[in-house]
């Protein structure tokens, strides 16, 4: 956004040196407001429809259909749900701590939304390219813990308090493996800035950090696991375990306040997918186009540059596709795995994830020392890891096909019609 603001100052006002121009702060302020509005809009139009996607996917996995009545294929279900919640009475329990009760959803939402400041959506599409980007993400999302605990405490309900305490224990524990697996990336990229991390990778899969060596490959899965726990997603959704806690920390909330907790949860889905994408899967990098070329296009162009706009859109599309794929995997995990017990949750974190991430850090350090960057051996390892990754995907598809074939013939015999009903054939 800074670069775009400088471009506006140069081209619209004809000022080459933005630093000494007295009115440049006005342009920066305008761009800040614009970026905030853009990000909020993005969160809103992501978090809404993704609830519909999740419910449709959940339906198909359970051999149901999911919501398909409101709008075309039920796509407007999220609007209907939101409107319904807006119309509901906003109840605050008598014994609740009113100021804290009202403040808690704001904190949760601010914690989630704060992370969007540094998420790189495209080549120049980042609200602020902070040089402490990853640290900032880890710090600002800790605000969520405070919000959840506050919600649990202020509700004056034992179930809500249990949920709040559980989420605190969980989020504080799982921040460590998250931070450690991100440390792997910091070691490799040599920077905390999100844009610089993306630039340290490349457009082609062999330039991605996930295929750099076996330890980064492992760290990617460890990161996704621990960010599942950070986002209170199944199988780590103990703070809102409905069979034990009714609903968890948000039990006393109703109407729009309640919706804001869920809103933050869905927004967090994008955040965890985006972190996985820009740290491990090459972010917005376009194959065959170097980031410097896009930079040069913006710096050189006096006036409107369609190729720059096109490359921005392309980089955003690439980022969105990768992140959406991760979002889909996270959704699928929700409908695959049962919830962990509390002790299992803590064991998984302290006995397995933390040591494994430490091994990853040591391994990456050793690899960086032993194997010269860009050498033959380095590329050999990258190629090998790509083969492993490809083999995993192939094995997965083969296993899915085996499961499908097991049911196909008996279904045809019993129902007299084909079992085949791909997800793109919406009903």
């Amino acid at each position, binding site marked *: 956004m800074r670069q775009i603001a400088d471009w506006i100052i140069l081209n619209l006002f004809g000022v080459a040196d933005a630093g000494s121009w007295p009115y440049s702060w006005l342009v920066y302020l305008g761009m800040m407001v614009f970026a905030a509005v853009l990000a909020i809009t993005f969160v809103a139009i992501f978090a809404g429809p993704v609830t519909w996607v999740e419910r449709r*996917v959940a*339906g*198909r*996995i*359970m*051999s*149901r*259909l999911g919501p398909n009545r409101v709008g075309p294929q039920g796509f407007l279900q999220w609007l209907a749900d939101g409107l319904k919640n807006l119309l509901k009475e906003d109840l605050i329990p008598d014994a609740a701590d009113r100021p804290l009760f009202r403040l808690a959803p704001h904190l949760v939402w601010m914690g989630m939304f704060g992370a969007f400041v540094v998420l790189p959506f495209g080549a120049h599409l980042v609200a602020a390219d902070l040089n402490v980007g990853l640290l900032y993400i880890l710090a600002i999302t800790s605000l969520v813990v405070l919000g959840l605990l506050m919600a649990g405490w202020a509700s004056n309900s034992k179930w809500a308090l249990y949920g709040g305490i559980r989420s605190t224990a969980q989020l504080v524990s799982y921040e460590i493996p998250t931070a450690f697996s991100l440390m792997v990336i910091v070691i490799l990229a040599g920077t905390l800035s999100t844009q610089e991390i993306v630039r340290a990778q490349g457009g082609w899969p062999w330039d991605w950090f996930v295929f750099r060596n076996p330890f980064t490959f492992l760290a990617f899965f460890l990161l996704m696991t621990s960010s599942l726990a950070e986002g209170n997603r199944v199988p780590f959704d103990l703070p809102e375990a409905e069979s034990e806690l009714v609903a968890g920390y948000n039990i006393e909330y109703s109407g729009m306040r309640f919706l804001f907790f869920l809103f933050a949860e869905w927004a967090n889905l994008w955040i965890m997918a985006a972190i996985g994408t820009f740290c491990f899967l090459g972010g917005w990098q376009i194959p065959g186009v170097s980031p410097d070329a896009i930079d040069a296009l913006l710096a050189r162009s006096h006036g409107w540059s369609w190729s720059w706009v096109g490359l921005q859109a392309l980089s955003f599309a690439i980022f969105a596709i990768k992140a959406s794929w991760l979002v889909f*995997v996270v959704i*699928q*995990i929700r*409908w*695959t*795995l049962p919830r962990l017990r509390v002790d299992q949750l803590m064991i*998984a974190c302290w006995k*397995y994830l933390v040591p*494994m991430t430490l091994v990853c850090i040591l391994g990456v350090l050793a690899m960086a020392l032993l194997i010269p960057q860009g050498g033959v051996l380095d590329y050999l390892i990258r190629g090998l890891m790509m083969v492993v990754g490809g083999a995993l995907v192939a094995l*997965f598809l083969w*296993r*899915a*096909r*085996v*499961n*499908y074939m097991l*049911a196909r013939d008996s*279904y045809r015999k019993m*129902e007299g*019609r*084909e*079992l*085949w*009903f*791909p*997800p793109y054939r919406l*009903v």
Partner: protein
Amino acid sequence: MSKKANPVVSYLSTIWRAMFSTFEGLAVTFSWLFRRPITIQYPDRLEKPVQEMLPEGYRGILEVDLGCCTGCLLCSTTCPIDCIAIQVVKNPETKKREVIRFDIDIAKCMYCGLCTEACNFDALHHTRQFEGTNVSRNNLVLHFVKEPREVSSHKKGEPCNRRPVGSILPEVMKDCFDQEEG
């Protein structure tokens, strides 16, 4: 297990089992995305009418064809919960037996099918109709006799020219159901 497992082995095997079961579980759920959902979108998005999708021998709301009924009262005496009420009187002018009331309370009926077993004259049948929502329980008493009519005189075993099952019920239900709540 008699021997204690090697802690390193059990540690690694736990990791392996967690990874393997997640992988296999995802493969199973992924395959379900390509299978036909079992959902039947009753009532408005059906491939064929729901009455045709019911299994053989389905016991829906009872229906009587008074053209075949001889007024023998077997069905009402068989009924364990007395949901069938029949009144047969002799017309003093024609000296013929006439049925003046044949009511079935479908709210009481438990769809056991004993009455249809008892009927010797092919008059009483279960239809495939089951949609009986109504605003009042009183409306659920189906009156099959609108005006007194002579009972059928055919003998047991003689074929009766019965109207098709399910063809009488709709108009009876319409008359009874469309009343005001009361």
